[in-house]
């Protein structure tokens, strides 16, 4: 089909945001781009709240004695810190924000399959979050039995706090399931004609794998929480050993969700990293199919390894063997991804901007978390470090060094597309350095603390650990401070940054064929793919315009 050549838009032709446009972010809007930004901003606010709670935890741990907060409040702080970071920041930011914003743009469709369902899913997040935070203000205080909420411990603390915790997680889980239904339907049914599974951008593959996990595992957590709430309120003893119940069954159900949840939190970020690295390396992605299928492999393996969290819960030896080996096998598809990323940037013309710095920071930090993951997967080692700070170090390298670094990279990469403004690179780099230094100062020493036997989730500790803990706390203060340059930079540049062109990074995926920010209905006609998503510097294309071409015309944008 003959194509109309697109003339790049000049500045004055770019769609201007009408006054009062910001109000739409506070309404039940069904545009996937609005919803994506709603998810991102909301979850970032919760990231700041969760960060404040973490700083409280570190303030307490700066000295061996219980001095900053009471023991009870300390338990509430780390419980709600973890719950907020997982259910209100990483899951909604990774799947909700970037899934919603990017999927229709990358797939070349106008919106998600079910826009209203999408808006409903988002609007469950703020009430769920406010509900959770409100538990700090009731008499008995918030839930205090860790984010795992193991019975019988979770049945022994304040009932109201625990009930609020259950309700809030149920609401957030439902929101996540509704989102997954939308993502799967959109990916399977709404790709632009000509886009097959094997030439869709890797982020879509990652979201596909993550959505399957959400759909299959989150409901099991709901089942566990329903039973737990009966124990809590109705006096049953399903999970209570004193009444004939079995708490280990709760652990199985809980980890059947919560282990895949790790992949729900990391897979979308794997996806965005696979988008960011080739763009800023100016090279095709290395091993497209390997990265794509390894997401599915991770998704499948992720479902059959949950009991490695329960090596010390009386799990029989033969079962521990199975879960140990299955867990270690996950390192294979993950390693495939890491090596493919390294091969992608190898010899590339790297642009070391904030997005790329965070993406490379992600790869290196995540590898550390992945290696300590293989360590704790082995039963003898895990029995030694179970419930120590080694586990805390490991999970933060995966979830902060992995997910959060990846989310920052994604924010810097798509900031021009989302807001129509460029973000300041100098402040972005300052933000990166502060985050990297603060993060490693805070969490690297925890490996040592764990090996020395310092238990997690306890407000006071042996004075011999005091110096190292002080170092960790200083790291956490740097981390807290590191969000300030980012926040100021983002707000100032969103309001009055330099206007962003349609394709500031010379990317080849479809979102860069649209103006920044994209028009309300994305593509006036289904876009025709002129190149693969990662054909940077490919020989056949030499001499042609290094831009993908859609049938978008200036007149279409202006009449919107």
């Amino acid at each position, binding site marked *: *089909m*003959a194509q*109309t*050549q697109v003339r790049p838009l000049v500045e004055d032709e770019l769609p201007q945001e009408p006054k009062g446009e910001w109000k739409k972010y506070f309404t039940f*809007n*069904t*545009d996937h781009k609005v919803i994506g930004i709603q998810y991102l901003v909301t979850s970032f606010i919760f990231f700041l709240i969760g960060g404040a709670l973490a700083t409280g935890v570190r303030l307490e741990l700066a000295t061996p004695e219980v001095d900053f907060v009471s023991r009870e409040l300390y338990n509430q702080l780390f419980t709600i810190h973890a719950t907020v970071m997982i259910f209100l920041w990483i899951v909604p930011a990774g799947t909700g924000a970037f899934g919603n914003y990017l999927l229709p743009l990358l797939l070349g*469709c*106008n*919106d998600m*399959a*079910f*826009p*209203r*369902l999408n808006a409903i899913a988002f609007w469950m997040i703020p009430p769920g979050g406010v509900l959770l935070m409100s538990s700090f203000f009731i008499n008995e205080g918030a839930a205090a039995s860790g984010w795992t909420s193991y019975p019988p411990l979770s049945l022994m603390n304040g009932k109201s706090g625990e009930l609020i915790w259950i309700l809030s997680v149920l609401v957030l889980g439902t929101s996540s*399931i509704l989102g*997954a*239904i*939308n993502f*799967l*339907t959109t990916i*399977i*049914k*709404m790709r632009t*004609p000509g886009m097959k599974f094997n030439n869709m951008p890797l982020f879509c593959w990652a979201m596909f794998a993550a959505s399957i996990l959400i*759909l*299959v*595992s*989150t*409901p*099991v957590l*709901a*089942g*566990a929480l*329903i*039973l737990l709430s*009966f124990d809590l309120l*109705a*006096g*049953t*003893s*399903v999970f209570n050993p004193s*009444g*004939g*119940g*079995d708490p280990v*069954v709760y652990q*199985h*159900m809980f980890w*059947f969700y919560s282990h895949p949840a790790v992949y729900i939190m990391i897979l979308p970020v794997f996806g965005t990293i696979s988008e960011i690295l080739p763009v800023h390396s100016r090279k095709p992605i290395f091993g497209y199919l390997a990265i794509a299928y390894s997401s599915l492999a991770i998704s499948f393996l992720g479902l059959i390894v949950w009991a490695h969290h329960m090596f010390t819960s009386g799990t029989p030896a033969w079962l521990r063997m199975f879960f140990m080996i299955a867990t270690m096998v996950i390192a294979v598809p993950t390693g495939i991804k890491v090596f493919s990323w390294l091969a992608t940037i190898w010899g590339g013309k790297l642009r070391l901007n904030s997005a790329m710095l965070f993406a490379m920071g992600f790869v290196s930090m995540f590898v550390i978390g992945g290696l300590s993951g293989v360590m704790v997967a082995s039963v003898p080692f895990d029995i030694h470090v179970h419930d120590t700070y080694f586990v805390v170090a490991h999970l933060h390298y995966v979830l902060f060094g992995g997910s959060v670094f990846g989310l920052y990279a994604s924010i810097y990469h798509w900031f021009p597309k989302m807001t129509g403004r460029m973000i300041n690179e100098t402040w972005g780099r300052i933000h990166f350095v502060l985050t990297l230094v603060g993060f490693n100062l805070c969490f690297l020493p925890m490996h040592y603390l764990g090996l020395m036997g310092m238990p997690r989730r306890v407000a006071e500790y042996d004075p011999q650990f005091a110096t190292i803990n002080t170092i960790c706390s200083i790291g956490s203060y740097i981390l807290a401070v590191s969000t300030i340059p980012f926040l100021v930079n983002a707000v100032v540049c969103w309001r009055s940054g330099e206007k962003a062109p349609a394709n500031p990074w010379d990317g080849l995926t479809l979102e860069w064929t649209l103006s920044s920010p994209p028009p*309300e*209905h994305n*593509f*006036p*006609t*289904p876009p025709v793919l002129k190149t693969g998503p990662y054909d940077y510097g490919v020989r056949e294309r030499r001499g042609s315009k290094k831009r993908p071409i859609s*049938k978008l015309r200036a007149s*279409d944008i202006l*009449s*919107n």
Partner: protein
Amino acid sequence: MQGSTVNSEQTIAVAQNGYSDGHGASHLEDHPDHRIFGLYMFFVAESFIFLGLFAAYLTFRAVTPEWPPEGTPELELLLPGINSLILISSSFVIHKAEDAIKENDVKGVQLWFAITAAMGALFLVGQGYEYAHLEFGLTTNLFASTFYVLTGFHGLHVAFGLLLMGSVLWRSRQEGHYSAESRFGIEAAELYWHFVDVIWILLFILLYLL
């Protein structure tokens, strides 16, 4: 349209593929062709709540030395058996509604939906009667707790199915709301009802027969 080679026929074909809402229409429109697919995704999620609960039940059964625990009265089979028959046959009744709407017969839909809803209500009444006459309560022992939670959670789904049928009946009063071409609501309610039915069959085998 300068230089465009898209002729009007192609434009229409494109429009039918769901790109008709370029300008006027709002984002509010769900994609009609994909709703059934989305519904199946929802059933996957629903299945996994039940599968999780079933697995928990089976694990309790396996790790408890005596099952059901000593002193649990035998379950009566007659009433739940009749109840199961009612629910299973209602699945065939509701299928008649789909046949009817394919013939544009809204009256038929109303009839078959009303009958199905009545059978569903009868099932709930039967279950309520059974609850009232059981010799164990929610907190008696592990078996009793899981029994009530599982059957109760299923009963909740039946009740929601009744609401769905009620809303279809309410909407069908409006002339032309449902037709052979536009019958998502009817199909969705029917599929949901089949789903609830299948769950009951598994539940019945698990709780009463095993």
